[in-house]
C-alpha cells in the first residue's frame, strides 16, 4: 500500500496576528467605537435611552432592507430597486387599508414586495440580465406603478391602528426596533448557520463550483431578490405607518443607504464574503454619524457629503488591504 499520509503542503498559514488582516476583518468595528467615543465627547445625551431609541427607530427601515441586501451582495448580486419597492409597499399599505381595512392592506403590501422580488429574481437568474441593469429598470417600473396607483397624491390614513406598526411600543421598546433586531438575528442565523446561507456563499464565491456541487444556483440567486423585495415592503409599511401617510415619492435614498450600510460593514461587492453582523456595524456607523450631525446642527448637505466619503473610503480601504494581503 501507499506511504502513510504526510502533510506535503509547504505553504504556511498566514500569520493570524498580521495587522492588515485584523484591520480588514475588524477595522469597521474600530471606526464605530471611535465614532461612539467622539459622539459621547461631543454632546451630552448621546447615550441617553431616548436618543438611542430615536437613532434605532429612525434607521429601522434601512436596517431591515440592509439585512436582505447583505444576502444579495453575498450572492454576487445587486438590488437598486428596494427604494421603489419601499415606496410602492407604503402606498399600497395605506391605499388598500383605506378601502379594505388594515389586514388587507398589510397583505397587499407584502404581496407587492414579493412580486417585485420575484420579477427581479426572474430577470437576474432566469434571463441572466445584469443585476445592476435589471433592478435599475425594475425600480423605474415599480416606482411608476406606485405613482399610478396613488394618482400621485398621498394616502392619508386616520385610523390609529394603521400607526401601530411604526409607533407602538412593546414593553417600552418601539415595534420598529423589535422588528429591526429580529430581522438581524434571523438574518445572521440563516446566513451563518444554515445550509441555505452556506450555499449562498458558494454561489457568490464561485458560481461554477456551486453548480457542480448540485446547488440550484438560479433558484438560490432569485430567492435573495425575493428577500430584498419582502424586506423593502416591510420597511415601507413601517415608514408609512410612522407617518400615517402612504406616498409614492419617498425612498429615493433608501437603495443607496441600504447598500452603503452593507458595504461600510465590509461585505464584499464581489460576492462570496460578508456577514450580517457587519451590516449591523455599518448601520450603526451611519446612524451615529447622522445623529451627531443632527445634534451639532450641521447642515444636511454636509451629511450627504460625509456619507458619500465614508462609503467610498470604506470600499477603497477594503480594496487596499485586500491587495496588500494577497501579495
Amino acid at each position, binding site marked *: 500500500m501507499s506511504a502513510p499520509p504526510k502533510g506535503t503542503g*509547504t*505553504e504556511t498559514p498566514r500569520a493570524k496576528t498580521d495587522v492588515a488582516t485584523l484591520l480588514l476583518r475588524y477595522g469597521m468595528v474600530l471606526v464605530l467605537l471611535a465614532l461612539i467615543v467622539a459622539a459621547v465627547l461631543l454632546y451630552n445625551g448621546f447615550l441617553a435611552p431616548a436618543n438611542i431609541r430615536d437613532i434605532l427607530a429612525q434607521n429601522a427601515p434601512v436596517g431591515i432592507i440592509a439585512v436582505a441586501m447583505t444576502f444579495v451582495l453575498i450572492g454576487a448580486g445587486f438590488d437598486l430597486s428596494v427604494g421603489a419597492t419601499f415606496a410602492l409597499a407604503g402606498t399600497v399599505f395605506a391605499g388598500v387599508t383605506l378601502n379594505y381595512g388594515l389586514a388587507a392592506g398589510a397583505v397587499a403590501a407584502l404581496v407587492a414586495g414579493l412580486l417585485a422580488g420575484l420579477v427581479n429574481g426572474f430577470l437576474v437568474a432566469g434571463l441572466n440580465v445584469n443585476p445592476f441593469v435589471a433592478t435599475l429598470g425594475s425600480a423605474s417600473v415599480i416606482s411608476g406603478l406606485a405613482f399610478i396607483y396613488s394618482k400621485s397624491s398621498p394616502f392619508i390614513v386616520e385610523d390609529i391602528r394603521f400607526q401601530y406598526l411604526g409607533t407602538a411600543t412593546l414593553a417600552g421598546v418601539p415595534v420598529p426596533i423589535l422588528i429591526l433586531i429580529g430581522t438581524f438575528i434571523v438574518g445572521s442565523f440563516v446566513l451563518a448557520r444554515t445550509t441555505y446561507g452556506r450555499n449562498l*456563499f458558494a454561489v457568490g*464565491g464561485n458560481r461554477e*463550483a456551486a453548480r*457542480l*456541487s448540485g446547488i*440550484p444556483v438560479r433558484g438560490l440567486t432569485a430567492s435573495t431578490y425575493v428577500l430584498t423585495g419582502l424586506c423593502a415592503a416591510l420597511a415601507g409599511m413601517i415608514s408609512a405607518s410612522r407617518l400615517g401617510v402612504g406616498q409614492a415619492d419617498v425612498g429615493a435614498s433608501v437603495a443607496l443607504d441600504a447598500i452603503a450600510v452593507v458595504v461600510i460593514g465590509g461585505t464584499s461587492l464581489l460576492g*462570496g464574503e460578508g456577514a450580517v453582523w457587519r451590516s449591523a456595524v455599518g448601520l450603526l456607523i451611519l446612524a451615529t454619524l447622522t445623529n451627531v450631525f443632527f445634534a451639532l446642527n450641521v447642515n444636511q448637505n454636509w451629511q450627504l457629503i460625509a456619507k458619500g466619503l465614508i462609503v467610498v473610503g470604506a470600499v477603497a480601504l477594503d480594496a487596499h488591504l485586500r491587495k496588500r494581503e494577497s501579495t
Partner: protein
Amino acid sequence: MSLAPIAVRCEGVDKSFGATHAVKHVSLDVREGSIHALVGENGAGKSTVLGVISGRVAPDTGSVSVFGEQIRGGHPTDLRNAGIATIYQELTMVPALTAEENVFLGHLPARRGLLDVRARRRRFLEICEDFGLSIQPEVPARELSVSQQQMVEIMRGVAAQARVLLLDEPSAALAERERETLHELLFTLQRRGSTIVFVSHNLDEVMGLADRITVMRDGALVADADTNDWTKKSLINRMVGHDVDFDERQSTRTNDLVAKITDVTVRPNAHPISMDIRRGEIVGLWGLVGSGRTSFLKSLAGLMPSSAGSLEIDGQRAAWPGNPRDSQALGIALLPEDRRRGLVMQMDSVDNHWIGRHGPYSPSRINRGHEEGVVKEAAPRFGFAPSRVRTPVGQLSGGNQQKALLSKWAARKPKLFLVDEPTRGIDVGAKAEVLNSLGRLAADGAGVVVTSSELEEVLGVCDRVLVFSRGSVVGEVPRGGAEFSVESILQLGFRAGEEDAL
C-alpha cells in the same frame, strides 16, 4: 558548455511573503545559450526565483544581474533593456487584438510617431518563417488556441530581441503534439543563442529539454547539476526529500456493470460513443486536446444539456442527465478539469466539502463540529493533513486543493467517478497520493474514469485505456495487452486523427 559566459546570476537571494520564507538565500548561475530547468514541489520557491529573475518580484536581500547588469525589481523597462522576456502560466494576451498586434504589444514599430503597419507585418512573417510557425496575423487572440497564444507570447519575446526567455510551466496546458512544437521552438531559440530558464512539473520534459537542472525544496536550492548527472528517480528524491512510491495497479475490476453508456452524441457530426464501466475498474481516457474526452465527461455530468444518449446505472435505465443535480442523483460525480472551477477559494475545505449537501445531522442547519469531524476523518485517506481543513482553500497548494476536492467528491460515494486531469500542475508527491487514492476508490466499488494528458500516468493507474479522437472512441487497449504502451497509444491517437482528416 561550462565555458560559456554567465547570462543570469542570482546572489544570495532571499524573499519572504508575510510569515512565509519563500526563497532562502539562493545563489544560481545560468550560462548563456543553455536551457536551464528549475524543479521542485509546489511551494518550493521555484516560481518565486523565476519572478525575481524576471524582475517582477523584488528580493528582500541579494541581487540579480543579467549579463553583468543589476536588475531592479518592479521596473519592467529595466528588464526589456536587459533583454529578458517572461512567459507566465497565465498568458497575457489582449483578447480583442490580433495575433500580430499582440506580438508587438508595447513596442509597436513606428515611423515618425505613426504606426508602421507594413514593417510590422514584415517582421511578423519573418519571425513565423524563422521558427516554422503558421499563425495568421489577423486572427484575434481570443480565437487562438492556448498553444498558439503561447507561441505568440514567445514571438513577442523574439520581437523584443530578448536574449533570456523565462517560462513558467510552459507545457502544463498543452497536448502532446503541441508540446513537441514548443520543444522544437525552444531548441531553435537556443541554437540562435538565446538563454532559456523554465519551471516545469513534467520531469520527462525537464530531462528531455534542459542542459542543466536546479532542484529546490522548501525555498532552498538543494542541488544543481548537468542533466547528464540526473536520473528521474534521483530528481524526485531530491525534490521530495525521500523516494516516492506509486502503487502498482492491483486490478479490482469485477464483472458487475456500474454504467452502460450507449450511443452518446456530444457533438453533432461525431460517431456516437458507447462504453461499459464495471465496478472496481479504472478506465483511462486518452486523446489529444480537442479529441472530445473532456466533453464526454462533462456530458455525463450533466453539463452539456444538448448532448444525448442512453444510460443504465446499476442495470436501471435512466434519462440522460441534463444538469449536474440529475447526474449526481444517479450517483455520478465529476472532478472538473480545472480545480479552480470546482472550489470556492474563500471557503475552507470543510465548507467546500458540504456545499450543496445536507449537513450530517440536520437537513438545513450547519453543525460545524460534526462537519469538521467528517472531513478530518476522510482527509488522511487522500494524503491531506487534517490540521489544514479550516484553511481557506485559496491559500492551499495546488496539490492540497486537488486532495480536498477529491475527498469532497469521494465522500458522496459516487457509483461512477469521473476524474478529469487530476494531476495537472501538482507536484510529484501529491501526484502519487492523488493517483493512489483513485485505486482505493475503485477498490471500494466505484467505477472510475480518469483522463490525463500525461499518458504514462494514465497507463500507471488504469485497467484499460480508451483512445479518443475527433469526438469518438477510436480504440481500446486493455492492460497487459501488447499495445499497452505510450508509443502504440500515441500512434493510435495520431493515426486516427490523420485518417479522419483525409
